[in-house]
């Protein structure tokens, strides 16, 4: 059985998961990305080389959402990752691992609330790097500028 899998574009893409948030950097473009919650969990599964079917299955076990919603929103998330050149898709031989594997470890006693995974992309790094990461930022910290700073036109935080 042929299945789809996404592979991180290392070494030009580096990432780290910090407290439920994945931060990703594309060294070629210099762009900085971040994703919270489910987006970070899915990124970790991509790092573990899980196939798309496995990720969908794991998501449905862990989160409270319909299979259709999961499929549609994950596809949009994967598309964003591909668009930003963070991952590439490959075809893999998969003898239905998604059903055969023991996923009890991933199954919580009660399912968590599902939120659409989103990728925040920051492209205007020259400006962001000039921010004082203590005084020019809000409580969420760099790279999100303080409210009165975010109006500056040169700073672009593209979210999607």
């Amino acid at each position: 059985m042929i299945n789809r899998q996404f592979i991180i574009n290392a070494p030009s893409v580096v990432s780290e998961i910090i407290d439920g948030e994945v931060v990703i950097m594309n060294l070629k473009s210099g762009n900085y990305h971040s994703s919270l919650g489910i987006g970070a969990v899915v990124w970790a599964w991509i790092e573990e080389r899980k196939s798309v079917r496995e990720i969908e299955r794991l998501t449905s076990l862990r989160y409270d959402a319909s299979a259709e919603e999961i499929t549609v929103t994950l596809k949009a998330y994967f598309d964003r990752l591909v668009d930003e050149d963070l991952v590439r898709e490959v075809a893999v031989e998969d003898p239905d691992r998604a059903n055969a594997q023991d996923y009890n470890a991933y199954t919580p006693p009660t399912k968590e609330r599902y939120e659409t995974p989103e990728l925040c992309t920051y492209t205007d790094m020259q400006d962001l790097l000039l921010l004082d990461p203590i005084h020019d930022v809000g409580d969420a910290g760099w790279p999100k500028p303080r409210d009165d700073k975010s109006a500056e036109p040169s700073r672009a935080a593209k979210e999607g």
Partner: protein
Amino acid sequence: MIGRIANQDFSLFGLWPSHEQDIMLRAAILNGEPALAAFHEWLGLIDLDQDFDPATFRLLPLLYGNLRKLGVTHPIMGRLKGVYRLTWYKNHKLFDSMRPVLAALVHAGIRTMLLKGAPLVLKHYSNHALRPMTDIDVLVPAAYAPRAIDVLKSLGWRPFDDPSPDAFKYRHALMLSSADNREIDIHWHCPIEFAGSGNDDFLWSSARPLDFNGVATLAPDPTRHLIVTILHGLRWNSEPPIRWIPDAMILLRTSGGDIAWDEFVGFARDQQLTCRLHLGLSYLQNRFDVPIPEGVLAELQRVRTSVIERIENTVVLRDIRPLYLRPAGNLWIIFSNYCRYARGAGPVEFLVGFSHYLRFRMQLRGRLEIPRVIARGLWKRLLAFIGIWQAGQTGRRTEEDRTNSSKQTGIRRLFGRPIFLTRSR
């Protein structure tokens, strides 16, 4: 001088952390309850609306990393996490931009070893976010230093200083910068105390392999890395250079079992650096309960501090700003640097060598200029004192004269500009 510092309670500002920095270091380094207690004490000492001093600022990612490990939830954590993210981004960017430079040096057949931050980040912190860096330090064999600089120049890097034969002889490193304001330090001697000593095999002989973003290079072994970290950090600076403390701690935590303490002590004794290395280890043990094997500190203390180290420490372990205000003070700084440089030389070689060294540090064309420059300085000083004395005698001292003769501005005003103001790099 030495004994006074060694017996102090690590309180000389500029050499040891300030109280606030000390508390912050404890929060960033220690485990469990002591770290939490230090964090809460630190919060009471700081004003978030004010700027942090640069040394403290550089430790914020480490503080965040430790507090995160301890499960701290506090409103300040968001901003600390932001500093952590920013450091992660900048270090990845720096390493990525330096990869072709290192690859070019390797391609040119030059052995390279990364010093200071890069090997610490890659081998010991094992995390790009914990230790901010602004440049990369690369050690090359002394014989290859001119070629290494040529390679960098061919890539568009500009040397900060003229890489003259004198510079290769008397200095230990040269900074170069790129068009996009990146910096790289090419070292041909390390630590700085080895300039002129011919002991360069010290680091090369036991270097460990290091993968720098796909480029095969070298890193110092933990014992030598610890020595270099303490020697580099434990120097008086108007901004206390406190980063050496977590660096030394991470070396001891990740490679403590690999530290060859007998080699450490042997190096300190042979290179006449027992006092500073003893001070550094004592500090780590006293403030952070670092387990130093029994006997190491006693052995370092037992060795009599050499004359050279005593002279050197009058410059390295004290606030040297007053020395810079006087020509004689500047001369003393140069002399102390030279004592380290020329240790092992016979009396004649020492004296002759000093005249060459003085010419280099005073940026003169030849040694014959030295007496003339000194005589000119003394003459100006004499004239100035005569002028002041005459003014006092005739009672014609104006307010301006009194200001001129005040201690704060005296020597600098009288000389026009200090003649020996060539600061050690």
